[in-house]
């Protein structure tokens, strides 16, 4: 049996998984620390995409555009936290959810007013246009870059969380915000910081995909839904779990395309629901 098709599907799955991970990481951080389920995450993602496009159109500089897109998405995250989320922290979960949902609606439409209704994309950087060819499928260097960035982000986040005071404080707020306050940690600052990081990560994900996936209003929805599934399966609040599950979901859904093209999403939802029924806290979550 020729295994090449499976190898290429696994490769593609790893690349897709890395994208899910970049989004899931922001969701996990925001949910874990701030305890807000952020429906507006796609907003930051799409903002990153459009900013990438806009800056690239003006400067033609890939790295600069990527940096600016990430920072602007992060800044939007901060604005959002300060203007809206801060007012709903103390309310019931449902109001937080709806607030993020409302923001998502508003931004989706607002983006259309600014960037129009069509799709935009930018070319892949010159140096990364080619790729490795396996069995007729080109494994593009740019896709490999996304996988590497995903892995690097994982290493950086784990090192940051375990080896810096700020990381320690974030973990502390994650577990017990009240006690952290009593120890002199400003949870408000941490919340804002986490929103910045989460939104910036989503923006980075959005910016990175512009050369590969065309961007239009609302196009990130499916990606975000999958990232949510990842976070839920992994357990709300587990960083390592989110990485592992992102990659697994990427690879699994990619292989399902090959073997049961009919049923890929159904199977994914079924697996997610099955895991939830057995372990509502998710595979890596604590109760």
């Amino acid at each position, binding site marked *: 049996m020729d295994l*090449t*098709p499976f190898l*290429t*599907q696994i*490769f*593609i*799955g790893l*690349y*897709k998984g890395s*994208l899910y991970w970049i989004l899931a990481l922001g969701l996990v951080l925001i949910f874990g620390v701030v305890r807000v389920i952020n429906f507006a995450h796609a907003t930051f993602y799409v903002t990153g995409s459009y900013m990438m496009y806009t800056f690239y159109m003006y400067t033609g500089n890939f790295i600069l555009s990527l940096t600016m897109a990430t920072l602007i998405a992060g800044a939007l995250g901060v604005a959002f936290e300060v203007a809206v989320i801060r007012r709903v922290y103390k309310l019931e979960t449902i109001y937080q959810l709806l607030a993020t949902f409302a923001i998502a609606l508003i931004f*989706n*439409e607002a983006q*259309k007013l600014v960037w129009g*209704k*069509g*799709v*935009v*994309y930018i*070319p*892949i950087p010159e140096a990364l*246009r080619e*790729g490795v*060819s396996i*069995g*007729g*499928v*080109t494994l*593009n260097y*740019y*896709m490999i870059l996304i996988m590497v960035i995903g892995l690097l982000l994982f290493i950086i986040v784990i090192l940051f969380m375990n080896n810096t005071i700020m990381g320690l404080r974030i973990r502390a707020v994650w577990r017990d915000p009240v006690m952290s306050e009593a120890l002199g940690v400003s949870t408000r600052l941490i919340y804002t910081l986490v929103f910045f990081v989460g939104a910036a990560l989503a923006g980075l994900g959005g910016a990175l*995909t512009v050369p*590969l*996936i*065309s961007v*239009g*209003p*609302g*196009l*990130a*929805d*499916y*990606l975000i839904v999958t990232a949510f599934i990842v976070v839920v399966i992994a357990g709300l609040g587990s960083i390592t779990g989110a990485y592992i599950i992102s990659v697994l979901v990427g690879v699994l*859904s*990619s292989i399902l*395309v*090959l073997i049961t*093209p*009919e049923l890929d*999403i159904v199977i994914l939802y079924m697996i997610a629901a099955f895991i939830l029924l057995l372990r509502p806290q998710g595979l890596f979550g604590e109760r």
Partner: protein
Amino acid sequence: MSVDRRGFIKTLGAGVVGLAVGAVLGWAAKPLEVREVTKTETVTVPGVVERKLPKATVKIGVLGIRSGLWSTYGEFIEQGARLAAEEINAKGGILGSRVELVFRDELADVVKQAKELVDVEGADFIIGIDSSGNAMKVGGIVSELGKILVVTHAATHRLTEELVYKEGKKLIFRSSVPVYQDGTLAAYIAKDLPVRKWAGINGDYEFGRVSWELFTKTLKALRPDVEFVVDQWPKFGTEDFTPFISALLASDAEALFTSIWAIELVTLQRQLTIMGGYKKFRAVISTLGYSMDVAYSLGTDYPTAELGTWVSARYMWPYPPTKANKDFVDRFKARWGRLPAYSAETTYSAIYMLKAALENAATLDPDILIKTLEGLVIMTPAGVRWIRPEDHQAIYEVPYGRIVHKGAEVPLLEDLKAVPAMLYYRHPPFT
């Protein structure tokens, strides 16, 4: 399909006619009764004076996708409709009555919008509708609305075959080509290509399924030696096709058929290029590949396969090369700053269809208008449209063409291949 199709194939021999004579031949190939109907259409009514409509304004409700990801399509519909209305009003309206348009977003509960158009806005006609599901919904309640509905984009054959022909919902008409264009005609293009093994990637919904089914069935009948080695079904709204593409590329297919459209098609084409699809597939057929949103988005990046990237749409601005069409394209470009997309033309022509019917009948009574519209033949930018009486489907030709780059902002077409519409359309009784 109807019994006389084989006869057509014989008469027309190759079945494919050249660009220059395409329109003329296609016209000539139409059955005799069509030409007879022409006469009734051309008969003007010199004897009657003071022909007027009972209302000073004819209101046309226009439905289209105006919010969310697909709102470009609603925009095309709106631009086509506005252009037609502006032209008509500038020339004194329809029998002296002004045309007024009311636009509604079909994504905000299409049935509610349709009812509101009729009951609150007082629309005399409803036109437009992008999504097949929505067309079926409005089609389902059309007798309750009591107004003529002209669908200008949604392509499901069930609308005309089931609702009009089988269920007798005579108020429904369609000015745009149905899914036959995507499935059946594509097979006529495919049969002449020197490839045997086909791959398919289509949306996992009615339109994608039917396109692929018609394509494979027709092609197999025309060329029994072909094989369909792989088919993939991404769902509606897929933003990343990479897993599907790599599954396609893992097969030994030599050519690719796709009915994916709009934004998704842009992504699909780019990712195909990136992943080496255009090194592998010698030919690509993209049934809605010359929709203007796609052509503008891809621009000079529009990939070309060795044996051609064959594209079509429900109307393509370079075809037919008639003066009427050229004038329309110029007027459209002057008005909106871009080339007309297909739903702009189909909506534009729908309004002119209504105009013709109103001028003939001089009434707003739907029953009389239905009779007038049935069998109507009218010259439109897309060529001559004949409204088939049985299923109220407008019959006209749209060719397939090969994408070429000539340094323009949008890619152009070469080797336009037109096949007479009567040849590849399904015919009553649609068995």
